[in-house]
């Protein structure tokens, strides 16, 4: 995207007043999105966003500037803005840039090669399938989005990395209503790859599935509040691991001791069955990439091994502070953002328990079928998750749907109440927000039994 000699001179300008490391991140992002709402294709949008960000690291300080203009003059001015405030001898730039190439994620059908009419047809199919589930389906919104993001990262220590990332996501949201009761259902698969996502998933199945979730939840009774055993459905429960365990193991919070896991390496948090891994290398997953946004190759990092805290995730800056090589978790939303430590695909590895037996073992409890999302305070580890689809378990069987259920607890403690892990591993794609930046992530988990949790709802226990 930019000639090597221009990169060299730009990095030289960035280090002209000192600093330990200069880095340039160049991005060319093209995207297309279609949205169907109220049975009409309402929005067809596309665009191109090109820019470069320059970062100068000096001690513990990162200064940053970015531009939309990729001319050499504009890059030089951006480099000067990024080094503002530094007053030292010029730093040196490694002249022999070593190219880093991460593992690719195959794109079978390039989204650019698929006509907008074909993309629009998938929306119509999903809409029709969702509406065919009954007159109680009142509204359907279907969206399709593809993004191609080409990045180039070069730094004064000689790193030069490129990645070409294509992601596709398809989402169906259904609103159902009956006698003043309103319920929603949602399906939103995505991957790193091309339009073949919609060959792997039948868009009509996605429409029907979102509709049937909404219809089932029309019968929901108010959730009880109190302490209960909670069974997490495969896939969806992974967000709990992401929020409750993952965020506190991002090294930027660890080095600030703003994490409930700080200085607890080697401690046991869960049973032998609990192993948690963050893995950006898994082929074609929504949270995968070839190299991270600092040019470090994607890798797999074990966070908890057999219940014991053994790992963390880092970017270049936090790795330096923690005295450990970066784990390839430096990600940024775009050239307009500083890289920060982020998760990629975070999994609680499957166990040996029979999922049906796990449900049978619960006398009275909550079955969390779909989490709507959640959040955690990394410093305290406290988390809250909302369930958009949940059921009461009575006498070892799923009894009836409940609404308004919230799961509330503490990250370091929750691993200790994992009493069973099923063999039925599943994943869910999501978008994680941190410091105002969004990143595509996948969370994976089997059916899991949490022995005793606080559930928030509208009815006394």
């Amino acid at each position, binding site marked *: 995207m930019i000639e090597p000699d221009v990169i060299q001179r730009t990095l030289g300008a960035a280090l002209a007043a000192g600093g330990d490391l200069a880095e340039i991140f160049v991005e060319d992002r093209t995207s297309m999105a279609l949205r169907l709402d109220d049975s009409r294709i309402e929005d067809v949008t596309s665009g191109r966003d090109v820019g470069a960000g320059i970062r100068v690291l000096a001690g513990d300080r990162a200064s940053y500037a970015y531009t939309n203009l990729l001319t050499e003059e504009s890059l030089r001015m951006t480099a000067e803005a990024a080094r503002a405030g530094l007053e030292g001898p010029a730093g040196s730039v490694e002249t022999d840039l070593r190219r880093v190439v991460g593992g690719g994620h195959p794109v079978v059908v390039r989204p650019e090669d698929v006509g907008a009419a074909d993309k629009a047809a998938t929306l119509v199919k999903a809409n029709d399938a969702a509406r065919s589930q009954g007159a109680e389906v009142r509204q359907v919104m279907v969206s399709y989005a593809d993004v191609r993001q080409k990045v180039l990262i070069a730094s004064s220590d000689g790193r030069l990395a490129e990645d070409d990332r294509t992601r596709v996501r398809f989402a169906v949201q259904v609103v159902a209503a009956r006698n003043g009761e309103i319920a929603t259902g949602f399906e939103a698969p995505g991957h790193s790859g091309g339009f073949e996502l919609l060959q792997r998933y039948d868009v009509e199945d996605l429409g029907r599935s979102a509709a049937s979730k909404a219809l089932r939840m029309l019968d929901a009774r108010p959730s009880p*509040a109190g302490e209960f055993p909670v069974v997490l459905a495969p896939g969806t429960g992974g967000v709990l691991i992401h929020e409750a365990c993952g965020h506190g193991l991002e090294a930027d919070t660890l080095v600030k001791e703003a994490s409930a896991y700080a200085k607890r390496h080697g401690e046991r948090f869960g049973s032998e069955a609990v192993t948690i891994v963050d893995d950006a290398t898994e082929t074609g997953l929504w949270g995968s990439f070839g190299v991270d946004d600092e040019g470090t190759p994607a890798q797999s990092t074990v966070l908890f091994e057999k219940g014991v805290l053994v790992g963390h995730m880092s970017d270049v800056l936090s790795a330096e502070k923690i005295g450990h090589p970066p784990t390839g978790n430096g990600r940024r939303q775009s050239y307009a953002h500083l890289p920060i430590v982020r998760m990629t695909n975070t999994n609680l590895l499957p166990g040996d328990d029979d999922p049906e037996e796990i449900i049978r073992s619960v006398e009275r409890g909550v079955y969390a079928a779909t989490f709507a999302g959640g959040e955690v305070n990394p410093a305290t580890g406290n988390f*809250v998750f909302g369930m958009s689809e949940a059921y009461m378990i009575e006498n070892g069987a799923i009894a009836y749907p409940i609404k308004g259920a919230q799961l509330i607890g503490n990250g370091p403690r929750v691993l200790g109440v994992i009493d069973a892990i099923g063999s039925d591993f599943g994943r869910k794609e999501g978008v994680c927000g941190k410091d105002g930046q969004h990143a595509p992530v996948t969370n994976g988990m089997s059916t899991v039994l949490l022995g005793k949790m606080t559930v928030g709802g509208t009815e006394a226990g």
Partner: protein
Amino acid sequence: MTQDLLGLATDLAGRAKGGEVVEAFLTHELNFYVKVFSGEVEALSASEPRGAGVRVFSEGRVGFSYTTDLSAGGRGAMLDAARENASFVTPDVAIGPAEPTDGPPPEIEGMVDRGQEDVRPDSKVRFALELDRATAARDKRVRAVEESVYSDSDTEIAIATSNGIFGTYRRTDAWCFSLAIAEEDDDTQVGFEFDLARGLNHLDAVDVGQRAADIALTALGASKIPSARMPVVFEPFTAGQFLGVLGQALTGEAVQKGRSLFAGRTGDTVAASGLTLFDDGRLPGAPGSAPWDDEGVPTSRTDIIAGGVLRSFLYDSISARREGRASTGNASRSGFKSVPGAAPSNLALESTGQSRDELLQGAGKVLLVQDFHGVHSGANPVSGDFSVGVTGMLLDGGEIVQPVKEVTIAAPMLEILSNIRAVADDRRWLPFGGSFGGATTLVSEMTVGGL
């Protein structure tokens, strides 16, 4: 800068072909950001992003495209893409551009702090350092300050359409926040506080830092309380977040498409009698104010709920045309890369007249809610379900009984509105995905889920 941006907008609008209306929307920002940790600058960013988005309207269709490449070639490619995108849209008589009004709308006072131009970057860095210091120095139990941030922007916005809308305005914004971590006897609590204004000279680093520390300090020793039905008081901070969820259900588009808990309830009593909920895009000093909205329609005040009765929703041009009415000037975009949609400008409840102290003293035993957890998953503007985790204080007649954590509160949102007994006169604006005026608010009964 003004001429340049408006010139590019009018140039794009001028390239409309017969039967088309072209709308061009451009922004040019000067942004600054500094983050301090442990007495040192940790991150600093300066940038000047620009970009354009165009909508092409033709025969009941609309297509959109955006670009950061403002060269003649980049602008042409954007226009071609928007034109092509329009051809795949389902035709609809409601789809069309905003209608021009007679002359430009009056300006809003105080959108620009002229003094902000003279604030040098090193003053901004000093401000963030002072914020960090004030937070850390508040009490020895403040173990760390996770981050202290100062940020500002100077934004020029220009719009032009081939049917006669054109204009440009400028706004300056400055904001700061601090995140304190307090620790005592193995208990860790966090405190977040922020402030925002048109310029740095109107922000107080010491005040914000001390308040962030105080929030964390007063929460030390928090525990669960038993599950119960009891009165709840929202702090301005949480009341504003509640309005943020409510706001998603208050647009004409959400109602037309059945994605609102208020659908089909116009004219009904949906809140306590005497309660007024309004949106006002022209309030001087409020962060969501602008002379015109993101389609170029003059902003206005809309009474959404008056005397407890649902009166109106918020509209952009397309959703208004669908009901044969006028836009309320509530078109909003998250930037030049986004198509506009209706959203609140400055949304708030009118105060019922009490001071915060009067409200708390008269309320008896209440759960004071200082922070929500899991709002985006636990609050549903379509079904009206509201169930979130909270931290706060158990109060009796305004006196602290104990700090509270790891409990949930829940009630249908319409029930919450009906149970609002008082809105104090201490409104502050919260810039969380919009601009929401939160004030200390008493709700007579909610379900608290704890032990």
